[in-house]
């Protein structure tokens, strides 16, 4: 193109008119502009589109200036392949971002006009520091807006389940981070079991914003199945992460109904998404470890509880056994003591009983002896006096008896005299007789019948006769 400027042409006259060819005009413009804008200038603008052509390696950025959302200036620009490579490397170093669409740039450019391609700015250099400041401004703006809306800490205030076992993963299936994450989760040596489901998404660069938002929308639809969302980006260095400062994405995550954990895996400036997420782990492996730790927090106390219960139960039982044993020992010793003391008591009682009995026996014996002596003495005394009395009685009786005998003797003598008079023999002498029947004196004449044998006693003999007749004499017949 430069070589074309060396060709000088002249206008021709046609019908009295000076006529320029298009090339002559554009060349003139080119020359005028080249004379007017000799040096390069620093210009600030918004780079709407980078328009990188991978085939040629050149870029044709679309530059605009906006006021109140309206484009008030725009111009094409050119960034040649070599310049692009330099600038892009600077950006990667300073911003950790490649040169990309939609950033504000401060660039060093020459105004260039080419007859074939028209007006454009030829960008020679772009100052990454300016863009950095702008990106930082965007990040600060996102933070400010989230805070002013009161949602900056919203996701952090959610309750994560005790066992966050169902994980919605936003990642790239083939990425190293995803593989690392699953490996740590699934090969854990405690056999903790997780459920995970991949929602594939771009994770860096401008398009990641929309891609992640779309997947968050899908997760929302099935959110009852999940405890936590993990955004996992692994490998790929720390380039293209300014999407995580995007307000729309950050807002979506802040307001997400279940905890969002990030493992974006870069080391420099923390992005807004990382700041507002429920928990931020530096790497995917750390997220997995964070989740495992949650399981530990549950599992370890369970194990401790198990050990404690075993321990305490055993101790309780052995304590009871010991207590019981000592109770038995105590019981034995107490009962033994009681037995011994009772035995001693009994022994003492026996002794005392024996002593008292002896004493009592002795007393009784003494008493009896005294009684016996008394009785003996009394009896003797009594005997003696009775003997005297009897002797006196004897004497008195003897005297009385003799007196009575003498009296009786004299009475007898009188009676003897009378009796003698009464003697049947004397009676018989005087002529009386006694008639008897069958050996008995007859007292009643009615007992005698005719023919009875009678015996009649008379003085100095007996008469035997038979009854001729008998007759009862009347009283007045006498």
């Amino acid at each position, binding site marked *: 193109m430069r070589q074309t400027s060396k060709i000088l042409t002249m206008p021709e006259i046609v019908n009295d008119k000076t006529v320029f060819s298009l090339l002559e005009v554009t060349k003139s413009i080119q020359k005028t502009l080249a004379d007017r804008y000799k040096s390069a200038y620093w210009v600030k603008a918004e780079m709407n589109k980078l328009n990188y052509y991978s085939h040629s390696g050149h870029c044709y950025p679309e530059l605009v200036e906006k006021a109140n959302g309206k484009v008030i200036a725009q111009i094409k620009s050119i960034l040649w392949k070599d310049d692009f490579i330099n600038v892009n490397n600077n950006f990667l170093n300073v911003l950790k971002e490649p040169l990309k669409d939609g950033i504000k740039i401060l660039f060093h450019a020459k105004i260039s006009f080419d007859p074939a391609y028209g007006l454009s700015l030829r960008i020679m250099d772009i100052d990454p520091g300016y863009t950095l400041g702008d990106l930082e401004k965007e990040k600060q703006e996102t933070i400010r807006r989230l805070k002013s809306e009161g949602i900056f800490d919203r996701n952090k205030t959610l309750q994560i389940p005790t066992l966050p076992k169902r994980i919605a993963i936003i990642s790239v299936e083939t990425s190293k981070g995803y593989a690392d994450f699953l490996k740590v989760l699934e090969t854990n040596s405690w056999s903790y079991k997780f459920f995970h489901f991949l929602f594939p998404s771009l994770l860096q660069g401008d398009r990641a914003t929309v891609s992640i938002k779309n997947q968050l929308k899908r997760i929302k639809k099935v959110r009852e199945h999940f405890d936590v969302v993990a955004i996992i980006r692994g490998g790929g260095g720390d380039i293209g992460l300014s999407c995580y400062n995007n307000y729309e994405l950050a807002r979506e995550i802040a307001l997400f109904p279940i905890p969002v954990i990030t493992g974006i895996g870069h080391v420099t400036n923390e992005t807004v998404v990382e700041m507002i997420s429920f928990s931020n782990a530096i790497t995917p492996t750390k997220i997995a470890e964070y989740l495992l730790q949650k399981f530990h927090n549950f*599992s370890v106390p369970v194990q401790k509880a198990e050990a404690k*219960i075993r321990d305490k139960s055993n101790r309780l039982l052995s304590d009871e056994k010991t207590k019981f044993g000592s109770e038995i020992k105590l019981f034995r010793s107490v009962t033994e003591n009681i037995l011994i003391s009772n035995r001693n008591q009994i022994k003492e009682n026996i002794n005392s009983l024996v002593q008292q009995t002896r004493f009592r026996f002795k007393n009784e014996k003494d008493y009896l002896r005294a009684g016996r002596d008394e009785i003996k003495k009394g009896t003797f005394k009594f005997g003696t006096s009775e003997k005297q009395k009897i002797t006196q009685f004897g004497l008195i009786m003897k005297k009385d008896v003799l007196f009575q005998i003498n009296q009786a003797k004299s009475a007898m003598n009188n009676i003897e005299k009378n009796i003698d008079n009464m003697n049947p023999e004397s009676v018989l002498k005087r002529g009386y007789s006694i008639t008897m029947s069958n050996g008995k004196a007859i007292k009643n004449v009615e007992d005698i019948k005719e023919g009875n044998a009678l015996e009649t006693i008379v003085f100095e003999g007996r008469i035997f006769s038979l009854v001729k007749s008998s007759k009862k004499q009347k009283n007045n017949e006498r």
Partner: protein
Amino acid sequence: MNDNPNYTEAFDELQSIVSEIEQGEISVDELSEKVKRAAFLIKICKQKLTSTEEDVDRILRELDSTTNENDAQQNGS
């Protein structure tokens, strides 16, 4: 007594049994029953750690369903 506790309930009940035992509030008479219950709860807790009941097919069906987000929110709440 709840025979199908979730893990938080199982865990809490387990902790309360531990503290009862620790503070000596359990007599030898109750011990066997309590230890049996604790073993049951420990088993449940361990099961929760090592198993999951989610169904991938169901999630896929729900993702494909035409239900929009607002409906899902209404149903969910």
